[in-house]
């Protein structure tokens, strides 16, 4: 023991898992593009009041349907004379919130259901999984419409509906990876050292199942944004005059022939946001799966 204390061991700093992920992420162009888009939208959402040139709700009837790059309106105005750029920026705020909150709801329930179902197994697992199968058999839009019509149309209820309708997916992903991990030696070892069920499920096994869950969640944010736009378009989500992208498309669809930008720009915003999350999610999947890494 003496020798090791007097010996001068070179201090090699080993990378933490986070550093390692970042290292691989930097080399993945798609993921970096996605991350760039996400960062842009997140910054827009956070600093919306600072970066938007005008009040997104202020109507200037005299300036209605101003085309792009005219009279100081970069993206023009809509049918009520509201500044499109400001509305799109505030829309980012709403869409990001929807994405994060609804995925948060799905994750919370999905993880609890997935982990307990896989951990306890047996009849409990069978019953839970058949219920999940039934939920998966419903088209998500039907499911969300049912939930929203039960709770009443509003943005919050749309988030809850989207969150709940996606629970089965997360439950399945989590269950599959818990099933793979729960027979591992380290689980038995922790058990032999006195860990109880809760500790084993959520503190020992779950952290090892996080990478597929994170990938699923990232892809899920994009999808949730798309779904909420869809719900708002149908009038079941955000209500006017909220600058929600889907709602913006819905309320101005009759102007598509003479003022294309009011319909197209929110559509492009949705496209870009969803694309960003999908690119990033796909990249993360490649990075976090050691088999796909070279």
């Amino acid at each position, binding site marked *: 023991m003496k020798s090791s204390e007097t010996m001068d*061991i070179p201090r090699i700093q080993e990378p933490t898992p986070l550093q390692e992920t970042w290292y691989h992420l930097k080399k993945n162009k798609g993921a970096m593009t996605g991350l760039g888009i996400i960062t842009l939208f997140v910054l827009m959402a956070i600093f919306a009041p600072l970066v938007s040139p005008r009040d997104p709700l202020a109507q200037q009837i005299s300036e209605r349907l101003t085309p792009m790059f005219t009279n100081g309106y970069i993206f023009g105005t809509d049918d009520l004379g509201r500044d499109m750029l400001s509305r799109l920026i505030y829309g980012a705020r709403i869409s990001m919130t929807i994405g994060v909150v609804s995925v948060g709801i799905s994750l919370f329930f999905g993880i609890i259901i997935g982990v307990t179902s896989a951990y306890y197994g047996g009849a409990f697992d069978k019953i839970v999984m058949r219920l999940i199968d039934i939920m998966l058999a419903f088209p998500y839009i039907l499911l969300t419409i049912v939930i929203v019509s039960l709770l009443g149309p509003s943005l919050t209820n749309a988030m809850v509906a989207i969150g709940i309708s996606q629970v089965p997916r997360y439950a399945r992903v989590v269950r599959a990876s818990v099933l793979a991990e729960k027979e591992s030696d380290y689980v038995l070892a*922790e058990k032999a050292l006195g860990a109880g069920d809760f*500790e084993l499920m959520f503190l020992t096994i779950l952290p090892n199942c996080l990478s597929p869950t994170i990938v699923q969640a990232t892809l899920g944010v994009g999808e949730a944004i798309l779904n909420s736009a869809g719900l708002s378009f149908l009038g079941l989500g955000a209500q006017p005059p909220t600058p929600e992208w889907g709602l913006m498309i819905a309320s101005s669809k009759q102007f598509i022939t003479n003022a294309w930008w009011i319909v197209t720009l929110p559509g492009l915003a949705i496209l870009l946001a969803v694309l960003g999350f999908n690119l990033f999610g796909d990249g993360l999947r490649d990075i976090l799966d050691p088999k796909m890494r070279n």
Partner: protein
Amino acid sequence: MAEKKEILLSIQNLSFSFDTQRGVVNAVRDISLDIRKGETLTLVGESGCGKSVTAHAINQLNPMPPGKVDHGKILFRGTDLLTLRRHEIEKLRGTQISMIFQEPMTALNPVFTVGAQIADVFMTHQHITKQEAMERTIDLFRLVKIPAPERRVNSYPHQLSGGMRQRAMIAMALASPEPGLMIADEPTTALDVTIQAQILDLLNDLKHEIEMSILLITHDMGVVAEMADRVVVMYAGRKVEEADVFSIFETPRHPYTLGLLNSLPSNTKYKNARRLEAITGTVPDMRTIGAGCPFENRCAYATQTCGQVFPTETVLSESHSVWCHNYHMVKEG
């Protein structure tokens, strides 16, 4: 071994079976063994003979169902572990009975640093702060001779070598407040020979330092010679011979024990064996084992009675018993 110390763990007539889809497997049949304070008992036998099932029955790590205790008692410090409730067993695990596993590669949680995992064990059983737990983890690392412990606690399992990981595992097992019994399930099987020797030395040192008892499971007679005070030889779920370590190597009386010793390479005592001797045949199917001696089909000394009744205990000396009808015929091969 001169004076007899108090018995820490006593397994009495334990039978354990697994009810599988393809029939009932009687993995352990009528096993009895005693472990005294500060003693190392090794459980020897080939793969699938019920060594691990016996060990896991102690702190109830066998999956139940399909596993089930058919009869028997496991007395630990006087209480029968089989009558304890679930949370009482959980309390015992890691406090008085700890365990180290065969595969140090997989027995540590890959997503946490080894230090955090050990500190966690401290905090599970004792009310101490994270800081204190970390300090005691570093002390433990020093005890198990991990170099540069202050830095090693922050390493992830994949950043450590096999030997280092096994030391970390041992440290983890020692993180209990009152280590009484350590169950070591083939602790050196996955390691190369030099590291194996170091780990065994470490276990021996620790045993003397903190006076714990070790139940060591192995199939390696070399490890037995190095570590054991007493040896229990198991075959197909049965105890076939029990003796102090010297008697086992000097005067093995069960044909299976003899076979195990003969299959050791370069054993000077058995130098007549030019080629390495293997025990012919394979272990019988555990589902179809009859009432007779399970070794009968592979045994050179088998007679007709062997296939019909399992032999009763023959006490050869105070510390040596054998379960064989024809033990008197077994002289060194």
